[in-house]
């Protein structure tokens, strides 16, 4: 029986590997996801064959969890995707924390009943319990905090306070100290309070670690937390010496880390810089102030310029997601094409709030994949572009990244919208963007501002086209 279960775990691990591999290619991605879900189902089913399970609770738990997951996944709007992924991720982390805790509790209660011959907690097990709880706890509260930021329930900008780094360092030291005391003598009387302390401190650290990270850096944070939830599952695997947890958790941890590094490279920053710089907070100097004047334009005038344009690029950002403007944008693009104009969508790697966010939204609106171009392909020919329409993007088109060494985002590759013949900037108001930085693009001589909700603005342009 034991052998059968383990062989099935190997099969599940193979399915996970192929699943992840196939997720990396557009034509096989959906089948890859199905394969990996079959692997998961297999792992769960053979686990149910185990001895002495409390089936009422196990099946009940599976049913409740499935129902909640099912409803959440069916109901979510595509624009709400980053929040939901963050939330799911947090649950995964908390589950790993609880698994670690439950295993210790089981062993501890067996010790009290003097049945500990079968379940001793040695230093190694104790230290991986600490790891599962630590990583799982940080993942949980970090993801929940990220969820709050993404869904607008908590302020989006970075929050910093004096001595924040010292405070976080203190939290980390506290975790190390309590973790070590617990691991060295996991059967001592002091051990249980120490474990609870680790749990509380880890939960706190998750909150305070994500707090100083601004909304613009969320793609990196989400990706890193995803990696962490994998590592937490992996640590839980060491706790209960279960190979499939170790393999699957480690695969997720490693691939998530790679994705995180890709995100950081797209911003030309290091992971350390993203996590600890307090980037985009109010207390940080926001580079040199731009002095130019914002030049608003009416929808009617914008229409005349667009009507004459032969080459248009659309640069979407988080603002398009917030306004749910993707369908209106698609309609505008079609009208422009019928008007004998070439339309392309320029996607910056970190536009939006999670990796590939814009691609998902434009796919939902049925924008053909061929129309999407990456930053490096669009920049060399951007001078030929008649109109660049910036829809709710800010940092990814901020020329300060290229020419202002005092700007915090100096060195980040951008889509050079300021070099287009004309630039329309769709923006809700005159304030600084999500990241809190001034953007010289908006005051550039060839820039025109279209204020208002992005969806309303684009719909207005569409109406102009249809009426003429």
């Amino acid at each position, binding site marked *: 029986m034991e052998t059968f279960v383990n062989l099935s775990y190997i099969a599940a691990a193979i399915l996970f590997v192929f*699943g*992840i591999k196939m*997720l990396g*290619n*557009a034509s096989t*991605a*959906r089948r890859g*996801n199905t394969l990996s*879900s079959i692997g*998961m189902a297999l792992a*769960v089913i053979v686990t149910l064959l185990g001895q*002495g*399970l*409390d089936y009422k*609770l*196990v099946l009940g*738990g*599976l049913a*409740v*969890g*499935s129902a*909640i*997951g099912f409803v*959440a*996944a069916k109901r*979510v709007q595509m624009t709400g*995707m980053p929040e*939901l*992924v963050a939330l799911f991720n947090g*649950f*995964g982390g*908390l*589950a790993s924390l*609880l*698994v670690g805790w*439950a295993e210790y*509790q089981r062993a501890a*209660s067996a010790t009290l009943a003097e049945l500990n011959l079968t379940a001793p907690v040695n230093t190694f097990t104790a230290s991986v319990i600490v790891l599962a709880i630590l990583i799982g706890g940080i993942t949980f509260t970090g993801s929940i905090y990220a969820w709050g930021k993404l869904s607008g329930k908590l302020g989006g900008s970075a929050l910093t306070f004096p001595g924040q780094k010292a405070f976080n360092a203190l939290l980390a030291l506290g975790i190390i100290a309590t973790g070590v005391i617990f691991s060295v003598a996991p059967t001592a009387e002091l051990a249980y309070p120490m474990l609870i302390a680790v749990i509380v401190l880890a939960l706190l650290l998750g909150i305070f670690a994500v707090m100083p990270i601004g909304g613009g850096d969320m793609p990196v944070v989400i990706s890193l937390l995803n990696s962490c939830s994998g590592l937490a*599952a992996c640590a*839980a*695997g060491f706790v209960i010496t*279960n*190979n499939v947890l170790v*393999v*699957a*958790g480690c*695969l*997720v*941890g*490693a*691939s*998530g880390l*790679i*994705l995180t590094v890709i995100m950081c490279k797209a911003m030309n920053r290091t992971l350390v810089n993203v996590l600890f710089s307090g980037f985009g907070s109010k207390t940080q100097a926001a580079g040199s102030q731009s002095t130019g004047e914002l030049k608003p334009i009416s929808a009617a005038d914008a229409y005349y310029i667009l009507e004459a344009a032969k080459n248009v690029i659309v640069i979407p950002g988080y603002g398009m997601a917030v306004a749910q403007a993707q369908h209106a944008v698609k309609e505008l693009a079609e009208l422009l094409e019928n008007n004998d104009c070439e339309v392309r969508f320029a996607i910056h790697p970190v536009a939006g709030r999670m*990796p*590939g966010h814009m*691609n*998902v939204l434009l796919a939902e609106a049925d924008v053909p*994949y061929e129309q999407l171009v*990456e930053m490096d392909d669009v920049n060399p020919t951007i001078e030929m572009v008649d109109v660049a329409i910036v829809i709710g993007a800010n940092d990814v088109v901020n020329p300060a990244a290229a020419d202002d060494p005092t700007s915090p985002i100096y060195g980040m590759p951008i889509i050079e919208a300021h070099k287009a013949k004309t630039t329309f900037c769709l923006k809700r108001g005159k304030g600084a963007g999500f990241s809190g930085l001034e953007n010289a693009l908006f005051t550039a001589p060839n820039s025109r501002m279209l204020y208002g909700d992005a969806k309303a603005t684009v719909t207005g342009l569409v109406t102009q086209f249809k009426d003429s």
Partner: protein
Amino acid sequence: MELILLLFIFVLAAFLGFELIAKVPSQLHTPLMSGSNAISGITVVGAILAVNTSADSLSTWLGFAAIVLATINVVGGYMVTDRMLGMFKKKK
């Protein structure tokens, strides 16, 4: 010995994970992330094993909560990923 073997598996799986995601088009970053997020719900296996009739009630209930949470992660994660990938597919 078993722990050494597990560590061995861990190291190999880490390298495999790094290799698998070498070149992924940015279009697929979101599905890849939410798909692998669903896999991290594998901790549900550990949670099931914790809900054992021989365990005391606190660890049983901790395990039960872990089952619910991890299953939300697994089921929700796979379904959301499938929905996203379905959108990518239909326009071909």
